[in-house]
């Protein structure tokens, strides 16, 4: 790993984190393209992204716990039941050709973009100038 790669990785990390926090999306949607840009293959980028999101997720969970929004028992049931799904998802991703997974990821990016626009339009006040 060269110095410029390290600097680029750090910069992409900060940028992805700020954007994720600002727009309320997970880091993974940005980490995967960032890691691909850094030279990782699609599958390796995805595995690495799952590790890279953990610090953000843990910090976010800590914050939410302070705000009192967290339902820990529900979260544990949800998380534990996801484990079987994780095995299935990873098998599917590794069984498919890497370009297919990459194209599906591109579609996911479009879907999140559309979702964000929809969510923002829904929240915009109808009469912006009224108090």
């Amino acid at each position, binding site marked *: *790993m060269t110095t410029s790669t*390290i600097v680029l990785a750090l910069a992409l*990390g*900060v*940028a992805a984190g*700020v954007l*994720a*926090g*600002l*727009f309320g999306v*997970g*880091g*993974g949607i940005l*980490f995967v*393209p960032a890691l*691909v840009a*850094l030279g990782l293959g699609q*599958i*390796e980028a*995805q*595995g*690495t992204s*799952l*590790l*890279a*999101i*953990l*610090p*953000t997720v843990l*910090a*976010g969970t800590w*914050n*939410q*716990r302070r705000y009192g*929004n967290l*339902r820990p028992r529900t*979260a*544990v*049931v*949800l*998380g534990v*039941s*996801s484990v*079987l*799904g*994780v*095995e*299935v*998802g*990873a098998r599917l991703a590794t069984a498919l050709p890497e370009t297919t*997974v*990459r194209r599906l990821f*591109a579609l*996911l*990016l*479009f879907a999140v*973009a559309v*979702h964000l*626009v929809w969510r*923002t339009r829904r929240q915009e006040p109808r009469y912006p100038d009224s108090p």
Partner: protein
Amino acid sequence: MRLVAIGLVAGVFSAFFGVGGGIVAVPLLILVAGLPERAATATSLMAIAITATAGVVVYAYRGEVDVAYAALVGLPAAAGALAGSAWQQRIRASTLTYGFAVLLSALGVWLLAS
């Protein structure tokens, strides 16, 4: 049972794409499990900690996790996310959000082309 079903779907989605899966879990928690929006977001976040850990194990078993890159990208991102979510409370971000949607679409086009 509803929670287990949501967990399964979120797990498949998360591991298939290498993302947290909040984008499917949060709407399902609101619509199917009846959680209020803030509780759904917070609860999904904590569940993702478990889901992503399982994902790391499963991918690492296949030799597809680069720990150095994960640290280089993931640690500054946690600091960035704290700053980003603090700014979010203060700005009216609709124009910015459209810009971000364009950025995501551009990344999608780039991935399709590469």
